[in-house]
């Protein structure tokens, strides 16, 4: 096991290095000045100071080495729009994104697998077809559109939920523990629901196909011939096999989920990484944008690593040669 983990970690580091290099190339190939912030407080003198500070007056090769060294130290530059080092800005935002995505992942995998089981158990019935149509519908929705419609519906037309922010920005600090907890939950509902609905649809579609692929296999017939009832056949023999590929879906779904989180955070003013990245675009705060991409990539690489190892652990054909 050790060697495999080692190999995968090396691979992950290589991926991050490639992305970091790409980011470096991007910054330098991009038109305009990376320090060309449109802010009245930035005087030419400040600009020159920054250039020197971040080594932009040195040869490209040196800059590249510096860039990598800073990255390795976790120094991602200074964010003008946030008025703090990028690292600090991300340190505040990342947990919020992980929190939102974590809730959505757990909920959507549970719901998606359940929905797929429902469809496969009632294969060919009207209800199963409806479930499939609903999954397809949500699968086709643009993330930002669903976010806006839910916001419109539940925060304006029928205002039962708050319209944005992870907590009540004014009152939260004064709340007792229990109301503060409820406040958190109420703010979580809409963004988490949006992300969950979209991901559930994708998981359900994937899982249904996997279940349908396993269903006609010979060993399912063997299980029936043993005298198992259909529920047990599906739960024990079919699902167990069909869940293995779903592990890879976890890794593959992360980039999409992260993409969805960008829009959801933007619309619900959920101050996570996506929100930060988009605000940074408006401010032409490039170090922050690139840092968001790098951290996002690191998240996905890590997620894939976990999924990969889980896959090997779950499939006896890979585990024991």
């Amino acid at each position, binding site marked *: 096991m050790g*060697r495999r983990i080692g190999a995968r970690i090396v691979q992950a580091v290589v991926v991050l290095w490639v992305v970091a290099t790409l980011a470096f190339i991007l910054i330098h190939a991009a038109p305009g000045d990376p320090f060309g912030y449109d802010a009245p407080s930035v005087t030419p003198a400040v600009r020159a100071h920054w250039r020197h500070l971040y080594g932009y007056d040195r040869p490209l090769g040196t800059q590249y080495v510096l860039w990598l060294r800073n990255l390795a130290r976790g120094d991602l530059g200074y964010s003008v729009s946030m008025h703090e080092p990028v690292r600090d800005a991300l340190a505040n935002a990342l947990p919020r994104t992980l929190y939102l995505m974590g809730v959505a992942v757990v909920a959507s995998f549970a719901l998606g697998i359940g929905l797929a089981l429902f469809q496969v158990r009632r294969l060919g019935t009207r209800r199963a077809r409806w479930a499939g149509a609903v999954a397809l519908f949500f699968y086709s929705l643009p993330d930002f559109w669903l976010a806006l419609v839910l916001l419109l519906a539940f925060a304006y037309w029928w205002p039962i939920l708050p319209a944005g922010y992870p907590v009540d920005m004014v009152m939260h600090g004064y709340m007792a523990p229990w109301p503060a907890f409820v406040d958190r939950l109420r703010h979580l509902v809409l963004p988490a629901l949006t992300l969950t609905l979209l991901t559930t649809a994708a998981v359900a579609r994937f899982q249904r196909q996997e279940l349908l692929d396993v269903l006609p296999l010979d060993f399912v017939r063997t299980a029936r011939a043993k005298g198992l009832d259909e529920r047990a056949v599906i739960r024990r023999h079919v699902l167990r096999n069909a869940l293995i590929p779903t592990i890879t879906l976890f890794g593959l779904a992360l980039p999409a989920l992260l993409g969805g989180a960008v829009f959801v955070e933007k619309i619900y003013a959920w101050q996570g990484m996506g929100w930060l990245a988009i605000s940074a675009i408006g401010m032409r705060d490039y170090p922050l944008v690139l840092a968001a991409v790098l951290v996002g990539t690191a998240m996905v690489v890590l997620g894939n690593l976990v999924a990969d190892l889980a896959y090997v652990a779950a499939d006896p054909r890979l*585990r024991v*040669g």
Partner: protein
Amino acid sequence: MSAPARPAPLLQVRDLRKHFTRTRGVVRREHEVVRAVDGVSFDVMPGETLGLVGESGCGKTTTGRAILRLVEPTSGSVHFDGRDLLALRGGDLRRMRRRMQIVFQDPFSSLNPRMTVGAIVREGLTIHRLAEGEAADRRVRQLLEEVGLRPEYAGRYPHEFSGGQRQRVGIARALSVEPSFIVCDEPVSALDVSVQAQVVNLLADLRRERQLAYLFIAHDLAVVEHIADRVAVMYLGHIVELARARDLYREPLMPYTRALLSAVPVPDPGAARERIILHGDVPSPAHPPSGCVFHPRCQHPAKDAACTQVVPPLEEKAPGHFAACIKVPAGA
């Protein structure tokens, strides 16, 4: 192997080996060498059919493909009509392919589902520029007719045909480039008995009409007896016995061949017969036994420690009858 007066062999295979490296397991990675074909030698005369029999995993299919260089042999030599096949490269090899063809086992996977039967048969003509346009059409119709299919079928797709008909298409494809040698890789084992007989008869007729030489690979000993002039028996990558068909089936020398023959069920309920049941499984070609590869399952009364150490050479024990067993006396 050939007596001086006889004509030169069409195909001469010497010490052919094909070793695969297989990676097992993801967690505990092991690279192991699978000796699929491990030192095989034989000749095929012009117009002769050599049967190659053995159980699954014995290396018979790999042997057939290595000869045609559809898998690259690890070592050894293959001479076809005097030319060293393993020395050929690129265009020379592709030109040589006109002379040697292959017919496959699986009538479903051996034909491209997206091509019409006519296009399938025509492909060889195009590649070797044997015929074009009208002439090619005529040739395709002729070939289809020759294998017992209606020429009007040229426009149809493989899925519109039954298994036996597909095998005929595969044979027509092989014939299109007018080879003198065909590797028949289990050509009838996927077919039902009644259709199998049709295809075996067709192959026999074509051989007679065109003086074709076959390497007829099969696991069904009865089919091979019916069509082969000589038969080679393979076990774990080695040829363990090679003889004229009649000799091999009447008086098998190798204990393995005897067991194999006795295991074939016979459609004759009253027949008194002595069945030799081999115990255990065929060992993995990645970890072949030492000495004689058959020794762990061998039931020869004279089996002893020498069998576990000495690799038995394939020796001529009787005129034209070769066996790889140190316990079989010469002149048996």
